[in-house]
């Protein structure tokens, strides 16, 4: 199968406008004859559901949480990028496009990224119109701040809760459509499978998480807006419930999975404190605007700090190594996430890590407090400082924060074309769940931008084209495909419930996480990855023999929910390893030790790896087949990323 990304012809800046004109339209009176399923109600899902319903389509929206407002988009802290150039500091659509392509280490599609930058300006307008309370200047106009990987201030924010405010905006738009009867909302429903009829997606199978009922829902198209799979690492900044199940089931039904090994490790997270740890907490990237990252100059000093022999506040200025400022004078503490993370790891590997475990570096606000005063720092980051103190019992106003990278975002996801359609017709994928816009590394404040761009401004156009093609003939849930899919799901649930071994699902999850973090984390090698592949296979086999799942199906059963998700992670993990093995170059978040510059930076191999790796599922326990989508760069010159 040849992958066709369907990138429109013509100059970069005209592609989207031309494409929009060429897309078929559905007559307003016919729209109500179509039903669209939207799975997931985060930024992408809620915005898509609301926008499609506003156009007149009937929407059925699903989320596993008890309310659509709880999707994990809510946790995004820092902000959302948009090429508004309100600050008159040289920003433009083209610059945002360029920064994003470069930030992604040239592994994203030009056409998609340009479109993203283009519609970014509409997103801010839309959100303001909904009543999203963005930060403002005293003059009443919108405020901006700067974020990693860019030299302009283009990030719009709402204190440290931008994701929350944007999601609540999308949630309110969704609520309006629920009120109008155009969206039917199904909370506490987990998508268990995609139903295909004659090769096209026509519905889904869900499990009602309260009653356990396995239900089928038919529609003319299915949109997966189900977020990322960072929880494959067990510990991540994702919510506990974030999972790959919906995307994975779609993958098994024929949707290719692209660049699964591209995961983002966020540099500023609160370090792990013990085995009981269930998740990691992010400290917003915005902190790097004023915080300075450092480690002790020598291993000896670090040892003394770890043992408590000396206190961090006793350390003299000349004994501190502000390693990001030293190595990257142009961007300093605001280098992209992958670069900052890798450098922190380097410090720890050298033995210069701090904290009881030695797995952390410092993020210091002493200079900012001296320059701006404690009150100004509190006004900017108060909630984050409080959060830090709550978790660590240390006062960041008095001593530097301890931070360490943690899994935060997955750039990989279901392969989609320019229309956001997967390799299964009628099955679309939006937001973090797809792979399209961030290449090998996502810049800060771009996830919110992409989720909302896909939902508000891309899918309402591109979906219409498909729907106009297939016509409004109703889909019947009595079709045998639905029965077959439902039976598969019931069998799978029963299989999970029959597991009455000795190890809890959590224990498997934690082990999988250890393997992934160790061998497929911030630094990867051929040997390590090969070893990990075997380990995951063994772990998966063991899971299906010795796992322990409690309870029954016909009840609210969190043990069963978790088991299903971990079982899918155990399959995904292997694919991530395969992908990392295949890509014998370093790029963005994917760092192969075999491929680095003399200075230890990621060394790309554009000649051999300038492609998106799309994997095709071939059956249980069989290696997947790789399809390559060559990336064509006509508007940017590929170069070694430099933030010096």
């Amino acid at each position: 199968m040849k992958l066709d990304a369907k990138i429109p012809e013509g100059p970069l800046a005209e592609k989207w406008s031309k494409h929009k004109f060429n897309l078929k339209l559905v007559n307003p009176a016919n729209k109500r004859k179509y039903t669209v399923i939207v799975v997931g109600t985060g930024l992408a899902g809620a915005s898509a559901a609301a926008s499609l319903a506003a156009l007149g389509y009937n929407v059925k929206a699903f989320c596993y949480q008890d309310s659509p407002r709880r999707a994990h988009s809510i946790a995004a802290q820092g902000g959302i990028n948009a090429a508004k150039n309100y600050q008159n500091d040289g920003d433009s659509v083209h610059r945002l496009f360029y920064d994003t392509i470069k930030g992604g280490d040239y592994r994203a599609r030009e056409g998609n990224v340009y479109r993203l930058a283009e519609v970014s300006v509409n997103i801010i307008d839309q959100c303001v119109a909904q009543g999203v309370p963005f930060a403002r200047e005293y003059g009443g106009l919108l405020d901006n701040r700067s974020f990693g990987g860019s030299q302009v201030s283009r990030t719009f924010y709402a204190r440290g809760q931008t994701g929350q405010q944007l999601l609540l905006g999308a949630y309110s738009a969704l609520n309006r459509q629920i009120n109008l009867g155009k969206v039917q909302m199904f909370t506490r429903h987990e998508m268990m499978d995609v139903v295909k009829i004659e090769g096209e997606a026509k519905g889904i199978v869900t499990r009602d998480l309260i009653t356990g009922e396995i239900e089928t829902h038919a529609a003319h198209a299915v949109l997966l807006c189900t977020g990322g799979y960072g929880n494959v690492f067990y510990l991540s900044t994702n919510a506990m419930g974030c999972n790959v199940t919906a995307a994975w089931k779609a993958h098994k039904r024929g949707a290719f999975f692209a660049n699964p090994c591209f995961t983002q490790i966020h540099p500023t997270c609160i370090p792990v404190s013990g085995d009981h740890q269930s998740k990691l907490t992010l400290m917003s990237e915005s902190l790097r605007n004023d915080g300075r990252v450092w480690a002790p100059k020598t291993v000896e000093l670090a040892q003394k700090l770890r043992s408590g022999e000396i206190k961090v506040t006793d350390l003299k200025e000349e004994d501190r190594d502000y390693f990001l400022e030293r190595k990257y004078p142009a961007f300093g503490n605001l280098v992209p996430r992958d670069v900052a993370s890798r450098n922190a790891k380097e410090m720890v590997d050298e033995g210069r890590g701090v904290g009881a475990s030695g797995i952390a570096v410092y993020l210091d606000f002493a200079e900012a407090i001296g320059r701006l005063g404690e009150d100004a720092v509190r006004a900017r980051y108060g909630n984050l400082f409080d959060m830090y103190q709550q978790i660590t019992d240390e006062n960041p106003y008095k001593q530097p924060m301890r931070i360490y990278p943690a899994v935060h975002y997955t750039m990989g996801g279901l392969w989609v074309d320019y229309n956001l359609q997967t390799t299964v017709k009628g099955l679309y994928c939006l937001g973090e769940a797809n792979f399209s816009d961030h290449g090998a590394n996502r810049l800060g404040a771009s996830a919110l931008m992409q989720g909302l761009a896909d939902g508000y401004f891309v899918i309402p156009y591109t979906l219409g084209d498909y729907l106009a093609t297939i016509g409004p003939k109703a889909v019947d849930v009595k079709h045998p495909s639905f029965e077959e899919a439902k039976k598969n799901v019931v069998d799978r649930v029963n299989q999970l419930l029959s597991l009455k071994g000795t190890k809890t699902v959590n224990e498997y999850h934690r082990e999988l996480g250890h393997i992934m973090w160790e061998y497929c984390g911030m630094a990867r090698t051929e040997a390590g990855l090969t070893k990990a592949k075997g380990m995951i296979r063994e772990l998966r086999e063991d899971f299906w023999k010795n796992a322990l799942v409690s309870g029954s199906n016909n009840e609210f059963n969190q043990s069963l929910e978790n088991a299903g998700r971990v079982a899918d992670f155990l399959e995904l993990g292997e694919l991530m390893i395969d992908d990392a093995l295949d890509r014998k170059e370093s790029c963005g978040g994917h760092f192969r030790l075999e491929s680095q510059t003399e200075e230890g930076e990621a060394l790309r191999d554009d000649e051999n790896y300038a492609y998106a790796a799309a994997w095709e599922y071939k059956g249980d326990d069989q290696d997947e087949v790789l399809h390559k989508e060559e990336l064509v760069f006509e508007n940017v010159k590929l170069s070694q990323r430099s933030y010096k």
Partner: protein
Amino acid sequence: MSKNMNLTLKVWRQKNADTKGKFVTYQAGHVSPDMSFLEMLDVVNEDLTKKGDDPIHFDHDCREGICGACSLHINGRPHGPKHGITTCQLHMRSFNDNDTVVIEPWRAEAFPVIRDLAVDRGAFDRIQAAGGFVSVNTGGVPDANAIAIPKVIADEAFNSATCIGCGACVAACKNASAMLFVSAKVSQLALLPQGQPERYHRVQAMVAQMDAEGFGSCTNTGACEAECPKEISITNIARMNRDYFTAKLIKQEEA
């Protein structure tokens, strides 16, 4: 680092909405003060699962205090003994060795128990759907900087908008009133220019839905404000009252 603790937990166990619940006592040993409250429950649940018992069910998701999924009434207080945080942000260092900890679900007619400590807060969504929005379709909106909004107003609207919909206000209120929750959204949009066209319709629609869900009346005890993890002020309630009476008695605008 301080040493581990042993705790006695009295946990409300209830199979489902239709069965009667009861308190069951568990011992939680080797609790690290660095654990979060939910991680402590995770450990208890691992033990229960291995013993063949059903784990304790409770809602949780982001575990960083923003999604609003976690609840738990701990020793008589929603989200436990500390101010301005959710249960998932509560750490065990807030407890002492040999403490007894009583854990109950949110109690309200409008929040029926689903299982153990998890309750159904769908009423909140229905209230929001009744009017908690500005009626704009996607696209065709003015430039974001077309309307200047005074910083103080934007900040105040933001403070109201930080509500996470956890339900602690209802849980804390002796009347199980949802006024703080409803007024936070009403206020946010009443403060902003974008919310003006539907201001008086919105407040009536949302209050009507709130009443229909079976929440109690506000008697201004201030418990909601004191227990709100986002420290939302009861000034919002006064603002909502004012708008409601203006809408009903002066504007005569039908809901």
